[in-house]
């Protein structure tokens, strides 16, 4: 029982990170119908910048805040410079552009921060909490709590604020939205910024556990994307649930079946789910626009 709980804790921790990445993917997908492969790089930047600032003796809250702000700016730049100029909405081209952006950002990180691992000390100490025979790191609690707060915030943003509702309008029908005075390109910029914000926060809060390195973004981003697709690309709730489930499955398979094949789990999962239920858990039936 305690082992099961241990695997669950581990799965919930990584699942929370994937969920935030997945949420970021979904927000951008809804605004612009593009899968942003640079999402993983946003996570990396959040952790890397925080780590560098802390080494320079900047207090933790400022380091995280600065990391988030810088990443948001970079997210906005990606949208302005790489996505906005591409007028014809060919999804294949957009995917390749975001992959290029991701390689570019990772490359710059390698030059600026070096190729070594970086460390961020845990926010409130390393003393493990014992629960029913399993141990939980305080930092894991931070990760899960941050994820929960951010998700609630995003949900409120979409329901209660004008800007959030505007984004939902754009995702449903961007032509109609512009008819009522919403500017789709401004909305897409905000979407990228918001996504970068989520990614940076996830990266910063996870870095004491995962440590951070210039190319950590790729695999984390991919798993986040799997989570988003698993839950149903386009559904925010789906993204969160999908991300957490991916983390849980990964951990349980590692615990009970095989640790070497752990990384394959999200991808086997996604192929399975896409074949049985292509719209994901919460997505609506995919409609083809003629």
């Amino acid at each position: 029982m305690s082992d099961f709980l241990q695997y669950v804790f581990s799965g919930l921790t990584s699942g929370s990170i994937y969920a935030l990445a997945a949420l970021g993917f979904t927000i951008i997908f809804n605004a612009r119908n593009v899968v942003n492969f640079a999402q993983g790089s946003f996570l990396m930047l959040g952790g890397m910048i925080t780590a560098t600032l802390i080494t320079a003796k900047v207090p933790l809250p400022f380091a995280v805040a600065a990391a988030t702000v810088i990443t948001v700016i970079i997210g906005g730049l990606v949208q302005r410079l790489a996505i906005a100029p591409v007028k014809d909405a060919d999804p294949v081209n957009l995917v390749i552009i975001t992959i290029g952006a991701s390689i570019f950002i990772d490359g710059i990180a390698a030059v600026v921060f070096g190729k070594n691992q970086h460390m961020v000390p845990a926010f409130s100490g390393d003393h493990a909490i014992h629960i029913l025979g399993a141990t939980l790191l305080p930092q894991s609690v931070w990760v899960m709590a941050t994820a929960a707060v951010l998700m609630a915030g995003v949900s409120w943003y979409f329901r209660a604020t004008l800007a959030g509702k505007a984004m939902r309008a754009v995702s449903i029908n961007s032509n109609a939205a512009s008819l009522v005075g919403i500017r789709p390109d401004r909305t897409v910029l905000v979407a990228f910024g918001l996504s970068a914000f989520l990614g940076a926060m996830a990266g910063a809060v996870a870095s004491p556990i995962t440590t951070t390195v210039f190319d950590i973004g790729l695999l984390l981003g991919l798993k986040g994307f799997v989570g988003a697709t698993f839950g149903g690309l386009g559904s925010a709730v789906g993204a969160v649930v999908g991300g957490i489930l991916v983390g849980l499955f990964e951990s349980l398979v590692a615990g009970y079946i095989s640790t070497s094949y752990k990384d394959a789990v999200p991808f086997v999962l996604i192929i399975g789910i896409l074949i049985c239920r292509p719209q994901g858990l919460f997505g609506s039936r995919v409609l083809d626009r003629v």
Partner: protein
Amino acid sequence: MMRFRNGDLLVTLALLIALPTVLPNAYWFDVTIRMGLAGIAVIGLNILMGFAGQLSIGHAALLAASAYTSAILVARYGLPSALAIVIATAGVTLISYGLARPMLRLRGFALAIGTLGLGIIVQIILVNEVAWTGGPDGMVVAPLQLGPWTISGERQWYVLVAFLLFLAIVSSLNLFGSPAGRALRALNGSEIAAQVAGVDTSIMKIRAFTAAGFFAALAGALTAHYSGFITPDLSAFMRSVEFATMVVVGGRGSTYGVVLGAVLLTILPQALGGTGEYEMIVFGLILMLTVIFLPQGIVPTLVAALRGKGA
């Protein structure tokens, strides 16, 4: 039915024959051969991405599967390498056919993710099953023997690869102009419109996927015996991205375009090889800039420009 490309093909043939005379040493032959092998692989991917408009970022998985199959057949079962290549190519083509139906029920990004997942799963298997594959450090592959002759040295391989590349170009051009090719290309525009016009889209997509698999498998098996050394990295996500980029940058739908894409993207890491950490930055930049400013790809853009000036 060969269309008006006869002239182009003759020039291509002449180029392939003339090239060895200007290449200064074996290293340059090596680079050219790698371009040729990549060219064969992307001609296949072009059928899926360029003609049929389906995005795949797992093409490298099929290449790697075939490479390892051929290598293992020779190493473990003692098969002659020529036979191993044939079996590996046929086998992976069949597997592509089997995978095609479930995979192609996915649309758009879902298909991209599915193929990406395939690539990563294959890579993980290759890394973990050390007894079969030698694990992450790869395995040595026996050289290619056709009957009594061993194909050794870059010059001999050049002849073989150039020949096969030429055949691949011919078949791709043939397909392009044929009724089947037109049906495939109809899918690219709009699947629903194609269905309305009477095209059986499911079968067409499956055939495209299988064809892509065939070319990838052929390129993979050849790569194994040419390099003499293969690693699970052959199936890596970045490799699939490189192939997709060759297609997009060269020109989706254009046979010559994707071969040019293969040439450029094979030379790029060699040219950037000495720059160390800046390689990633430059590569990412080139990727973005080419796709943003030449969304149709290099060759179609050039062709359109030439046509525009002519008219």
